[in-house]
């Protein structure tokens, strides 16, 4: 009896090790994949600047434009970050600015400056899945969703992509039941994400339409969110992207909201 048990255990262990080697030849553990993807998507360089034009199209094909400059500085890869967003268009919101201190361990801090009211306002970050200035992008799409919020499973590895399914650990906190991400095997950039609603129906799709290598970093230069329910979409185009431009931490302080730093201009 004891013997048998021993043999069984050994066999099982051997098989498991074997299986690991067979499948793991060049394969990666899912946590590593998503960490790399997170870094590629949100932490390129130590800092960066980009000019973004968003075109919001509604179900009736009416379009609206948002144009803004975004500055970013990372504390460390995968860690805290700071964002500064300066609006240029529509012109009646020109000079409006928005700042985020993204904290991985606690809630983000967010500020909004409304020049016409000469008002700096803190925005509570209790829910990051709200629209980013009326577009189909969420704040979370812009600043990144915490990896700890979901359980990740690698469901498929194709020639080009790792396909990871993400299920929220706190399903009550989000409007989706799960989302699937396609991660480019070479660049580790997430190139597509599909969200399923509580009825398991796809209702939202984010897709990278164009990627370029800029300053050695693979960068998404055009992306799109589609609202599959209403038929609306938002396309973002990134221009004049630069990395490692030496942004100082103090630029990301409340004081600069009213008077934008010169780095907003090229």
């Amino acid at each position, binding site marked *: 009896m004891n013997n048998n048990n021993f043999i069984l255990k050994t066999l099982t262990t051997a098989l498991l090790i074997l299986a690991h080697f067979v499948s793991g030849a060049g394969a990666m553990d899912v946590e590593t994949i998503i960490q790399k993807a997170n870094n590629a998507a949100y932490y390129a360089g130590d800092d960066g600047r980009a000019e973004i034009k968003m075109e919001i199209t*509604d*179900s*009736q094909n*009416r379009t*609206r434009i948002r144009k803004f400059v975004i500055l970013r500085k990372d504390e460390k890869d995968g860690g805290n970050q700071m964002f500064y967003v300066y609006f*240029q268009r*529509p*012109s*009646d*919101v*020109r*000079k*409006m600015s928005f700042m985020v201190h993204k904290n991985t361990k606690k809630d983000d801090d967010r500020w*909004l400056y*409304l*020049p*016409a*009211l000469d*008002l700096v*306002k*803190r*925005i*509570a970050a*209790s*829910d990051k*899945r*709200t*629209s*980013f*200035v*009326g*577009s189909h992008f969420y*704040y979370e799409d812009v600043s990144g969703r915490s990896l700890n919020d979901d359980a990740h499973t690698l469901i498929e590895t194709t020639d080009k992509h790792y396909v990871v399914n993400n299920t929220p650990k706190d399903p*009550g*906190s989000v409007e989706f039941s799960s989302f699937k991400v396609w991660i480019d095997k070479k660049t580790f950039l997430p190139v597509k994400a599909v969200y399923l609603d*509580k*009825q398991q129906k796809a209702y939202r799709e984010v897709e990278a339409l164009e990627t370029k290598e800029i300053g050695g970093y693979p960068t998404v230069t055009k992306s799109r969110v589609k*609202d599959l*329910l*209403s038929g*609306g979409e938002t396309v973002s185009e990134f221009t004049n992207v630069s990395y490692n431009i030496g942004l100082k931490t103090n630029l990301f302080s409340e004081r600069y909201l009213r008077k934008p730093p*010169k780095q907003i*201009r*090229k």
Partner: protein
Amino acid sequence: MSKNNLLLKYSIEWPKTVTALMVIMTILLGALIMNIQVDTDPENMLSEDEAVRVFHNQVKKTFDLQDVVVLGIVNENDPDGVFNPATLKKVHELTEFAKTLSDPNDPEKHVVSQNILAPGTVDAIEQAGMGQVSFNWLMKEPPQTREESHKIRDLAMNNPLLKGTLVSEDGKALAIYIPISKKDYAYQVRSALQEKIEDYSGKEQYHITGLPVAEDTFGVEMFIQMAISAPLAMIMIFILMFIFFKNLKLITAPMIIAMATVISTMGLLIGTGNTVHIMSSMIPIFLMPIAVVDSVHILSEFFDLYQQTKNRRATLEKVMGHLFRPMFFTSVTSATGFASLALTPIPPVRTFGLFVAFGIMLAWFLTIVFIPAYISLLSEKSLNNFGTVVAAKNKKRTKKDYFNITKPLRWLGDFTYYRAKFIATASLIILIIAAFGIMQIEINDNPIKWFAKDHEVRVADRVLNEHFGGTHEAYLILTNGKKQSTVGEISTQVQKSVSTTLTAHDELLKTAQAIITNVEENAKTADVYFSKLNELWESVSDDMNNEDYDLWLNSLDALQSIRDQNQIFKNPEVLNYIDKLEDYMLTTGIVGKSNSVTDIVKKVHQELYAGDEEKFSVPETQNGVAQTLISLQSSHNPDDLWHLVTPDYSQANIWVQLKNGNNKDMEITLAGVDKFFKNNPPPVEIDYKWAGLTYINVVWQDKMVKGMLNSFLSSFLVVLILMSILFRSVLWGLLAMVPLSITIAIIYALIGFIGKDYDMPVAILSSLTLGLAIDFAIHFLERTREIYKQTGSWEATSRLMFEEPARAITRNVIVIAIGFTPLLLAPLVPYQTVGIFLASIMAISGLATIVILPALINILKTKLFKGTSNRKLQSEIDEQYKTTIINDINDEEQLEVIS
């Protein structure tokens, strides 16, 4: 007459062929009923290309608005009202359930889940401490504790957009607004919700309402009623006829004619591609009495004459000889009354009128062809116990007859003869009183009131409108009324503005002006001009030093403000004007609440300033408004804003919630808004226009009332002309119009006095009145003239008229008036209305005919019969007919002696 004889001959000689042909026609046309397309949408009272409908649909598209099913949850038993964990859990479940609804058989029909308005789908703007503002779902998850429930209540109550719309001010009720992709999906949604709710236990009450629910539910129940009321009326008529004629086989004939007429007409209606609308669904009910009337005339007379001759053919020839002309004319006049509805501008009413007219003529044709054929097919034996003589004998035996109408009729005859002037004066007085009543008539319709008072839909409407701002929606659409400026005009403006912003900076000014000139030459539209200019100015600014750049930005801002001139609904002045307009609408007492972009701006503005009451106002500048709105757009539902304003801010929608669906209340609101605009000129040019179902109902009601009046007046005239031709005398023609005029006057006066609204069914019934009421007058006058020719004296004529002719009329009145009483039991008000109307029309017009007409004839006899006595008596004097009547009289007299 020869044509009649030919037809009669054919019917009597080939009864089987005639019957077979009728059956085949009925089956063929009846088969078409399978293709039935039901249309219960009152919107279709207006044709699809009607301007107001086109606009309404455009508004729905522009502002992404759908027809809405309102689910109200009321909790009167909990001290916290609906704001307790148990109730809110159900609210949450019902919201999630509603999101999933769709018609498995029709992908076009579904709930528009992203536009559901419920605690779980709206944002609460709240102060989140530390001077923070947050946009959070009002109820992301059902709360677990009483405190959490209270928090939801307080947040909702604090939001003027939600208070009175989503939550009631007393906290006892909560509403879920469920938009649907198609209006005729409302009933299914209601049923699905009801089924779900059935499983719930608890103290909550659930109510489902909204105009689409009312309309769609009405449609469904209407067809159920069709299947119940029409056959019930049929059975009732059958029983009554049996009581009068006591011969099952014989009275089956009118039933067959009514069936054949109704089936063929409906078959033709459906077969010709018409949808069965609320109106056309009533065709069977309208046709049935009319189809039966002529047969009753024939049978009634056949009944009276048959035993004299014992010869079917001879009796038939005689009866048809008497009745052919009056029957033809009554049918033509009734048909005219209905056909005149084709003059109304309302498509379903047109269809209704034309097909009823067709049905009437078909019934007439079937009557003169089939009744003789049918009688010919009966065995002599089955006719043996038929006819007045037998009936009289029976009476002797039983000594009991509840339907002995002969005696009272004779008394009435004497009364009209000796009290003619009294009757005429009384009629005149009645007419004068009626005029007052008619002036009291209130024109109003309300689809909710189509349901009986205790109907679920009506109860739901009442309860929810007690709790909320109103579940009846109208949209007041404001549009920038300013004409688009030309590129040249704009450019001049821009030139002027840069010379201000860049004053004393010649270098920059020159650069700017050079670009302006260049763009102005190439731009064809204002839009291109602005975009190009903006783009070029921006690109130039890239290389400027910071000081120049700031100046340059000012110029860009100035350019934008010129561009934004058309975005009037960001203009604080305009928003404040809307605020005033909304306040004004509330003072009418009819509008329970309204929502507009102004309300949103004010609320967000307040919350940006930490909830400061003083800041519940519109920001002072256009940019301030824009920045307030973009803050709001950082919420979960940024697109909700576009229900109230277009993204280019050139058009705005004020969502007006009315406490009830009464058209007259909508009309008061319309007039109030007109007055407001007149007395308060807007700060910029603004055009305003209404949309929404409640408004559409007003438009078609208005068209219908006017259309009905026109069609009634024109058919009155046509009938008068027809009568004058029939009697070859205008005086006789006018006389024929008296009973129907009095009937209509009395009926509409009653409507005025008892305060019943003049609504769609009531309006339609005026044509029915005209059609039915003229019938009796024609029969009465035609017979009067015929008998007068024979007797030469009004006194003798009068006596004879109160025998068989008066009996036929009375029988008709009783059969139809009582026959339609089952309609009174229907849970739908229009059916009850039709039932009451039919009974009143028959009773009043029957009475008016046999009371007022003889009185008037008595007064006018010298004028009326002038020339008749000089004229040679008509070719055949019907001796046999005379004998019949005399025999009849003798019979009755004997009876009296015995009893």
